[in-house]
């Protein structure tokens, strides 16, 4: 009995801990802002958290493959720029712009993936160099902050559309697609290649193809995040994506995704992103100078990871 409990706890230590932390944060949040659970609040908050959650989902995809994507923020910025520069008119135009931005982001991700899979260069080096490349392409597409997103879309997205929180629906949709993918052999292949590349290859998986697809999928997540950010702010900024690289890694690591690949769950990452987002907002409420935000983010990251390492070591000894 006791053994069973330890096994169950060991498997979900990080998730349970994160969930507890999230609950504490929500209670504290409720204390400062009693309208937390109203539809309007949920719409605003989900619009605010969507870019980070989706960017973190992209980073998680790559990290599950045993890689890392340091160009994620640049790809996010690129998709944002492409979406906003298209000058969409009407519903059809918006859809075209979205598809265009998504295609560009997926292509960028696939290029990263191809370099990692075929060139024999470590992911950290490839994506580091690629961050120059995609950041530069973004600046060529959109040298200055600007672009245009239809006003109606911005209002509907940020204030709710007929009482429906569009960003929350978008997040739920993306996560549902991920869940579906996880149940197919493609999702399993992702974990297999990340967990043991030799084994996956020996079992007949086309490991290079899986890698390219994984990085492409990460590009799609980053692209969606960029589109969301553009709609939320109503325009595009070529350099706004940069912090998302590090924050997406932070959210994934908080969520229990291993650096070595093959270990971790997307739900952990979503919780991690929510914790980071809520904490940032809470700091604003408490009236502490926003300057302290960065300090807190760094400290939380280290404390969470160190705690996790400590706990898992206790469990294995």
């Amino acid at each position, binding site marked *: 009995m006791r053994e069973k409990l330890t096994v169950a706890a060991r498997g979900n230590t990080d998730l349970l801990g994160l969930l507890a932390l999230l609950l504490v944060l929500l209670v504290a949040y409720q204390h400062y802002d009693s309208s937390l659970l109203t539809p309007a609040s949920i719409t605003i908050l989900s619009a605010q958290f969507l870019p980070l959650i989706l960017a973190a989902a992209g980073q998680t995809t790559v990290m599950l493959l045993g890689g890392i994507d340091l160009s994620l923020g640049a790809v996010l910025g690129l998709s944002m720029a492409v979406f906003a520069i298209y000058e969409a008119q009407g519903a059809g135009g918006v859809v075209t712009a979205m598809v265009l931005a998504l295609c560009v982001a997926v292509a960028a991700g696939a290029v990263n993936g191809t370099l990692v899979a075929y*060139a024999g260069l470590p992911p*950290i080096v490839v994506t580091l160099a690629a961050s120059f*490349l995609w950041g530069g392409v973004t600046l060529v597409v959109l040298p200055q902050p600007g672009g245009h997103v239809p006003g109606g879309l911005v209002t509907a997205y940020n204030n709710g559309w007929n009482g429906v929180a569009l960003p929350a629906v978008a997040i739920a949709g993306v996560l549902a697609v991920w869940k579906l993918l996880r149940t197919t052999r493609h999702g399993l292949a992702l974990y297999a290649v990340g967990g043991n590349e030799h084994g996956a290859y020996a079992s007949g998986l086309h490991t290079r193809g899986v890698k390219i697809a994984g990085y492409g999928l990460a590009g799609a997540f980053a692209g969606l995040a960029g589109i969301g950010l553009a709609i939320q702010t109503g325009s595009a900024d070529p350099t706004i994506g940069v912090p998302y690289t590090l924050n997406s890694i*932070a959210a994934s690591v908080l969520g229990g995704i291993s650096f070595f690949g093959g270990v971790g769950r997307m739900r952990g990452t979503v919780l991690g992103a929510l914790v980071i987002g809520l904490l940032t907002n809470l700091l604003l409420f408490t009236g502490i100078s926003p300057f302290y935000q960065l300090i807190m983010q760094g400290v939380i990251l280290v404390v969470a990871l160190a705690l996790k390492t400590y706990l898992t070591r206790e469990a294995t000894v």
Partner: protein
Amino acid sequence: MTGTTETTTDTTAHATTDAATSTTRPATGRAARQRTEALAALRGSRPAWAFGVLAVTWLAAILFADGFDSVSNFRYLVQTASFLGIVAVGQTLVVMMSGIDLSVSGVVALSAVVCAKVASGTGGGATAITAALLLSALVGAVNAAGVVWLRVPPMVMTLATGTVLAGALLVYTDGSPSSAKVPLLDTAANGRLLGVPWSFVLWLVVTAAAWWLLHLSRTGRYAFALGAGESAARASGVPLAATAFTAYVSCALLAGVSGLVLLGFTGTSSLTMGNPYQLLSIASVVLGGTSILGGRGHLLGTVGGALLLTLLTALLTSWNLSEGVRQVILGVLIIGLLLVYARERRT
């Protein structure tokens, strides 16, 4: 594995030719074999590639670009390269033991901002410099402590300290860092010794010291061992803590030195002045032929890498390209160069 097999077959091939020729001219045969072997070793050496590419690029720049043939241009290039180079030398020490330091950008800004603030306030130049360097070293110690004792992956640990530093500097300066003119730093950044910029001399001294540390001292052997395989190294008694502290503290200290020289160069400090050095220092290390996974490479390669990156940036700037196009070309060039000579062996 391919590299090793190639060398083995090469040696056997040479051995047979040598055996054939040895009956007639033994001395010449041995010399020829040694020469070919040396050439093969050079071809396989990535740091040599870094300097080769650097030489070709520099020659092309002198021949085809305007203004690259003057002594003053050369002087300016090595002067600006030393800002990046000093950081990159420190980064090499950390990368060699398969770590990585993403907090160098924060440390560069930290040392410049603290020095400027103390110097423009009550403290003198010497106090300011000491305070800046002590704080930089402290950051390195925190990085090492996190990596060694908390077992946090280096990338996350240094990322976190970098983030904390950025926040701490905002709080410390209230968002508006000060400027200061410290005579000593002004000389270090802009002065010359017999026509050679002091900053370049400083870079050379730093490189020599780091060379000794990495390639001649016991700590350096430990760093290589840890980079090649941590568990095996620790099982053989390599002290992880001492080595990591030496590497991370040296790296942070060198980033601090670079921040001070930059402060002397511009006369002002800013919160973002370190930002370019985060990625560029790692790029210099990798272009210099050091494996990002650690355990393989040479410190001198980093010097070539830093010079190459500075030269490429200067070339792209001289062509009046827009910022975006410049970044695209730099990114493609880095990827291209890495594909040519920095591919990891497939495991």
